[in-house]
């Protein structure tokens, strides 16, 4: 290899580079548009399904079995979340507050919708 002895005209290489990065941006932008359309379509379908099944209860019974031992579980309502996640959240709250689990009483653990202020909680 001889240094600085170009095997391809610089203008041609420049054109390939510009087209190359443009193609990458174009394809990834196309995928981004597809993702936006997909999420809208999925939300639409999910909305329709929810309307068709109006009586399905969103509230599950108290998670007595998998709530960690020592928690004053009472009637913890799990809304849109599973027992494992609820247990983790309760443990985190206890840790952050510095209050033992057996002295805490939880009323509900609820997954908030995306549209609600503050995003997911």
């Amino acid at each position, binding site marked *: 290899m001889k240094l600085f002895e170009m095997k391809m005209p610089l203008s041609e290489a420049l054109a390939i580079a510009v087209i190359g990065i443009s193609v990458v941006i174009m394809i990834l*932008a196309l995928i981004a548009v597809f993702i936006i359309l997909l999420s809208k379509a999925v939300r639409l379908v999910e909305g329709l399904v929810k309307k068709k099944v109006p009586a399905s209860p969103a509230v599950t019974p108290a998670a007595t079995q998998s709530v960690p031992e020592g928690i004053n579980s009472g009637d913890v309502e799990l809304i849109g979340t599973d027992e494992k996640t609820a247990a983790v959240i309760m443990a985190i709250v206890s840790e952050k507050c510095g209050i033992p689990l057996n002295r805490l009483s939880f009323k509900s653990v609820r997954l908030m919708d995306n549209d609600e202020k503050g995003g997911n909680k």
Partner: protein
Amino acid sequence: MEMVKDVLIGLWESSGFSIVTGKELIMLLVAFVFLFLAIVKKFEPLLLVPIAFGMLLANLPGAGLMDDPAFLMTEVVDGVEKAHWYEDGVLRLIYAGVKSSIFPCLIFLGIGAMTDFGPLLANPISLLLGAAAQLGVYVAFLLAIILGFTPEEAASIGIIGGADGPTAIFLAGKLAPKLLGPIALAAYSYMALIPLIQPPIMKLLTTEKERKVEMKQLRTVSKAEKIIFPIVVAVICAFIIPSCASLIGFLMLGNLFKECGVTERLSDTAQNALTNIVTIMLGVTVGATANGEDFLTASTLLIVGLGLTAFACSTAGGILLGKVLYLVTGGKINPLIGSAGVSAVPMAARVAQVEGRKYNPTNFLLMHAMGPNVAGVIGSAVAAGFLLMMFGGK
């Protein structure tokens, strides 16, 4: 007494000590240095240990582990008639997996099975950051052309800027096999050095105000979106650039295994056993391509320099688009996440997180940076497919 002398002379003449060349000795030293970096300094040890040991094995004098008497890896058509395939060195036989792109594709299968595209689906604008972070690929390509490399070599060197080892090996194996060793080593070495390379560029290109930006929490992505995404992306990419179908196809197949919920065993195998097995074979054989004749040249030093330039330009490309998005969205996007568009997953995202927290301890950028990070994997595969389409003769 004469017989004993003859035996000793024969032993000496057949030993490596009598036939070792200066270049082989230097390559053995280079292999020791890489082993040191991998084991003691922990630079990408899972890859650098097999690569360095492959380099060591291939440069053992007289061992012939990369010999090719059957000309399986050359263009000599009648060579196969003169020798059998099994007469090739064992590493040469395994190297067929690199030449045929089997190993890079299988690694992509594993990466797909390990990747959560959720952050990308929750924030599709991440894809643009992943695209902008391919800037270094084309800058390094241009510089390599100016320096006198052939277009095929320049394309293979440029792809180091994609910060994706398997992609670099895939392209170099097809376009510039003689440069495979230096390119793979440069790619993996710089990936390991990302925590050192990126922060100064991030600091240079962003203001303190930009670095402090807290981003809104990502939305929850539904299961259906995660299942449909890999199928459609594989189709879109393969339709536009068919030469990237193998990499993107395997990446998305692995991801479908992970997300579809009915192939847990396949997903587990792809993530663990298969990836580990292929990593061993890929690493050892890529290291074995680094023989003294091809490695100890000025080209290697140029490749090392161009690779660093490519990494730096890719990082800068992602950050600069991040700054544009910061302005367009009225300060809702932290430009630091643009640096994660170089695809080194998850190292680049972790660097964005660490740098973000330095300026705002309550900031949590990791999940936001994972979007551009996985977009970079797709971006580098598309860039490789484009370069292969241009220079691969297809």
